[in-house]
């Protein structure tokens, strides 16, 4: 029954729609507001359900020009980069922008197979410092300093 991709997506979307509708119906109502804040969300929730049902009965598209599937061999690389990004975000405010960005640029590029370590090191050092100066003195935007004194 759930054989085609469209049917699987449709079931997921119906679940999202129902979840959204439950939340919408639970929004507080106000007595003297002619059009309350739950009206549009409820309408959108039902609209999504209707469209998902339509999708359920639509045949899958056969032609897929640009196949975006990740080959099994590449999966650890992609997940590794996602892991790098999570670490980057996690340590950004703790260690500070410059330090974390230098480490991220250097090791992420190396992880992806960049072998010119000297060039990598120069770029990894220069870019964060330039960005920091640009934001700090020119745009007046304070990026997290972290454990570094400046």
């Amino acid at each position, binding site marked *: 029954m759930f054989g085609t991709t469209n049917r699987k997506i449709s079931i997921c979307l119906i679940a999202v729609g129902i979840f959204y509708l439950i939340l919408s119906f639970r929004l507080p109502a*106000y007595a003297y507001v002619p059009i309350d804040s739950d009206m549009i969300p409820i309408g959108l929730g039902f609209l999504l359900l209707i469209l998902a049902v339509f999708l359920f009965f639509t045949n899958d598209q056969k032609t897929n020009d640009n196949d975006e599937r*990740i080959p099994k061999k590449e999966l650890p690389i992609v997940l590794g980069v996602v892991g790098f990004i999570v670490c980057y975000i996690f340590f950004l405010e703790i260690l500070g922008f410059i330090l974390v960005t230098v480490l991220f640029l250097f090791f992420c590029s190396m992880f992806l197979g960049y072998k010119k370590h000297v060039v990598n090191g120069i770029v990894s050092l220069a870019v964060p410092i330039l960005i920091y100066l640009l934001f700090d003195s020119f745009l007046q935007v304070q990026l997290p300093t972290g454990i570094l004194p400046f």
Partner: protein
Amino acid sequence: MDVFQGLAQGFQVALSLDGILFVLIGVSVGTVIGMIPGLGPITAIAVMIPITYGMDPAIALLLMAGVYYGAAYGGAASSILLNAPGVSEAVATTFDGYPMAKQGKAGKALAVAAIGSFVGGTISVVFLTFFAPLLSKVAVSFGPPEYFALMLLGLTAIASLSEGSTIKALISGVIGLMIATIGIDAQTGTLRFTFGSPHLMEGIDFLVIALGLFALAEVTSLILGRKNKMDDMHNVGSLRLTKEEYKEMGPTMGRQSVLGFLVGVLPGAGGTISSFLGYISEKKLSKKPEEFGKGSIKGVAAPETANNAANNGAFVPLLSLGIPGSGTTAVMLGALIVLGIQPGPLLMTDHPDVFWGVIASMYIGNVFLLILNLPLIPYLSRILLVPRPLLISLVIVFCVIGVYAISFSTFDLYLLLAFGIIGYLMRLLNFPAAPLLLAFILGGMMEQAFRQSLTISNGSLSIFVTSPIAGTMLLLAILSFIVPLIKNRKAAGKENIDKSA
């Protein structure tokens, strides 16, 4: 003072040594700022305000006009070269700009964008000069029902013209509208779908979604293709356009200059809607619509021309009524007030030098943009020569900074990553991302316009039909769906007949 006398006075200011120097500085600084994801014309102008303190107002405005044009072009450059639209106006440029860069025609794409911006900017300034008072009257007559209908038309048009399944495009649009409902409701103050998190109270920022769905999702493709030589990509290609190419994009630019300007005059519509409408209308008119999305010159020329024309159109309500029509003109309004000038009906009589100076500076800014940027294209395109692994890391860093510099919260950065993954899944499952983004941008305004209309009419939906302008636009919105559906049916029917024969 008549138009020509005014213009002559304006040019006197704009063509002075100071004037030329500051337009030049503005254009260069603007281009650099505009290329950084997240920093668009609004930020660029806002950054310039403190620098203009104490400057002669007319000269200060020249500097800003330069920054404004430069930033818009810089945004187009990062869309074309990196598929990273920094601002919503530049999203439509990625559709064909990035495929062109992939095919080794980055130079051409950037040249088309520069010429398109120049043509759109110049033609619309001429309109601005002559039709400003007349057009502002039309824009004033737009109420909530008309706005709602206009925005709905913009949305249905993009959904019906997306590649692949219309239902998927519609689902994408509805999800965009749903995301837009997150946060405090502007009319009642109710917290909606925030799950108790203070980070979601103000809703999700546009940049989180744009950079996630477009730039971060692209990172996956970059990772998969990092070992491919990408010889084409390394080749910036010639900037020279052939006679045929000029002929091809000439009518497009002419049409989009007018259309973009008209859309820009309507407050709130602005560059984003006009660039999408421009792209879509050209695809509709084209004899080879299948080329769009695969690196069509018209696909770059249309949104760039329309968006620049709309940006100038937005100056009509600002200069003649003192009402900003877009985010950028709102910042401009702030800048003018800081300089001690109150835009509005009296601006032309009280400060003719400023009024005409702004208009003259637009002519000059456009010319400088073209002169400066065409020779710079080979240098801008060198971004493509950066080795893949390094480029991937840099794109990620730019996305992270773009979001962090606006929100200062790591929560938004995790959201960015989540939207990157959603963006990748959408590509995998053939869901177009553009309807989601446009729906998200328009969602808040659409909901307000819809509810205001119903409040005016005491809950009756007839208000959308009784207004002739709103009614016509709604009819067009419905037609924009039905026509492609009938066409598809006919095509499918023909195929079946062919097969059975």
